[in-house]
């Protein structure tokens, strides 16, 4: 049975004291099996919210709209109890902020064991064997010792690998890696890349990689989704999107990379007042027309399954 993740008209709205705030809108895509899909965008673009919405791990004031099919299962229709069976077991998470992700008052071994025993009570010994194997694979020389420590006794890099161990405990079908390189220096970024590559080669190729790190996404992914202000502006294969960006935003994003000369995307252009209803990139788009201001662009299909949300490609 196919276990791809297919989202349709998917969105997330936060109901705040100042009224509803739409964080993610109208997302249509398929996360195909055997593929790493890179979700890229700047901070606040909604990429983490999209990832956490698949697992339904959002704050209480968030509402999920649209459909999210996992294989034949409609995740948005599941009860909380059924969703608990999916989390960690079928779709696992490598969270951001590794140091914050582990409970400071519980020993690491217990937190790892728990990931398995929640789904399979009584499998304590298996869980221990599993995390020791995984730790050895990810470069811990003394798993037994580390498992008796607390997260604050480990270095940032060790915690980073530890949460990868945590995600892999139940041999999940899918892995969502949320901002794995956020706030890391070059050495740790390289380590994260190696860990993720190890996972895609030996554990599961089905991965959603949420990152602002375009270089990491290029190295690991086969498909790229570009998010901006809660909408997917462009999606397609890595070669198409990153080497021949179609959407003006993607072009700007690629052009702003250090190796491409760090040309910034312009600030909101003069004479363009804040509008709602038009294209989300209208304010900063160098190629915007009058139409972009009034009309919301739909996704246009190009060759190779590529989709771009821009009137230039209608």
């Amino acid at each position, binding site marked *: 049975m196919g276990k791809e993740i297919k989202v349709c008209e998917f969105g997330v709205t936060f109901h705040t004291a100042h009224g509803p705030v739409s964080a993610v809108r109208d997302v249509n895509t398929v996360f195909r099996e055997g593929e790493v899909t890179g979700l890229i965008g700047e901070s606040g673009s909604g990429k983490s919210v999209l990832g*956490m919405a698949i697992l339904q791990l959002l704050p209480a004031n968030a509402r999920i709209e649209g459909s999210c099919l996992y294989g034949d299962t409609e995740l948005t229709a599941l009860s909380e109890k059924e969703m608990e069976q999916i989390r960690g077991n079928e779709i696992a998470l490598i969270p951001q902020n590794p140091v914050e992700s582990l409970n*400071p008052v519980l020993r690491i071994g217990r937190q790892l064991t*728990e990931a398995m025993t929640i789904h399979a009570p009584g499998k304590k010994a298996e869980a221990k064997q599993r995390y020791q194997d995984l730790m050895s694979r990810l470069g811990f020389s003394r798993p037994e010792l580390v498992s008796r420590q607390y997260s604050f006794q480990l270095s940032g890099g060790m915690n980073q690998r530890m949460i990868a161990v945590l995600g892999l405990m139940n041999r999940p079908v899918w892995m969502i890696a949320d901002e794995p390189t956020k706030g890391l220096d070059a050495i740790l970024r390289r380590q994260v890349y190696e860990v993720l590559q190890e996972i895609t080669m030996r554990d599961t190729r089905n991965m959603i990689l949420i990152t602002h790190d375009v270089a990491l996404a290029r190295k690991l992914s086969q498909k790229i989704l570009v998010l901006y202000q809660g909408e997917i502006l462009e999606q397609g294969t890595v070669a198409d999107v990153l080497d021949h960006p179609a959407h003006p935003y993607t072009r700007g994003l690629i052009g702003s990379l250090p190796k491409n000369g760090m040309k910034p995307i312009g600030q909101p252009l003069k004479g363009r007042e804040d509008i709602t209803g038009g294209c989300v990139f209208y304010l900063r788009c160098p190629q915007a027309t009058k139409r972009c201001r009034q009309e919301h662009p739909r996704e246009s299909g190009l060759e190779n399954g590529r989709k771009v949300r821009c009137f230039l490609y209608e």
Partner: protein
Amino acid sequence: MTASAFRPLSGYSEPMGIVKYMGKRLLTLIPVLLGITIVAFLLGTGAPGDPVEAILNRDGTQIVSPEEYEIVKERLGLNDPIPIQYIKWLRNAMTGELGQSFFTNKDIREQMAYRLPYTVRLALLGLGMTVVFGIGAGMVMAIYKDRWPDRILRTITTVMLSVPGFWIAILMILIFVEQLKWLPTSGLNGWKSYIMPGITVSVSTIGVCARLTRTSVLDELGRQYVTVASAKGMNARLVAIRHVLPNALIPITTFLGNYFAGILGGSTIAEVIFNIPGIGNYAIDAVKSRDYFVVQAYVLFTAMVYVVMTILIDLIYLAVNPKIRAGERVE
């Protein structure tokens, strides 16, 4: 917290951390203890009223001869200079010898030993009720934040922490004793006699504890490790009990320890209203009759309780907070 980036694995030194931590704690207690004994002693000697006069002339109608006065004063050791009196008293107190009451001539240590179980029972009941209802209500409020259970409990706890214990006591007597005749008024007739005193000593603390728990749990619920625990597939209740509560309890431990020490020495109002022969009642009687050896003993006792509780809280801290165990700097 200052997490150094790389910690060598050999730095796994919990026992050393514990020894260092407790050593520091115990050292700071020495001056505290000395200070307490001095204050307790001076409170007795400095209090208005002449104990010799009080013993010989209880009702104020007797004429005391100077010879009689001198004999009693000598017997009480009041002719010595105050520092000598203090050192004698301290030496006796250290061996547990607290002297005799001026009036009843009963041994103070025996009296306290007889009365202590009543006070301890009341204090334990108060603590138990605070833990169960305070922490319980706080958890419910945090989990149902801004929904109706939270709103109702918020109102109730505000009322609880605002009304004084003696008022609740009188209200309860009116309702449960006078009107409904469910409970005995005063004195001790089995466990039923402890219900109203227990509520009296714990009602406002339950309110404070519930508020504290709510805040503490809400702080923790926003932390990333909670999301990660949920991402494992754990249900919300288990996440709350296994992951959130152990963290949220750290600040609550201190509060509960201080409260327990407080009612061990300070359940006086409840003891007097419900006529329970505990330590507090003893102290009130002694104050009324200027029985200052008893007052000194009482002050010393309550202070010692605080000191012992402080050590106990520290030990509990060691159990609940691994950062201290590992010798880590804690903010």
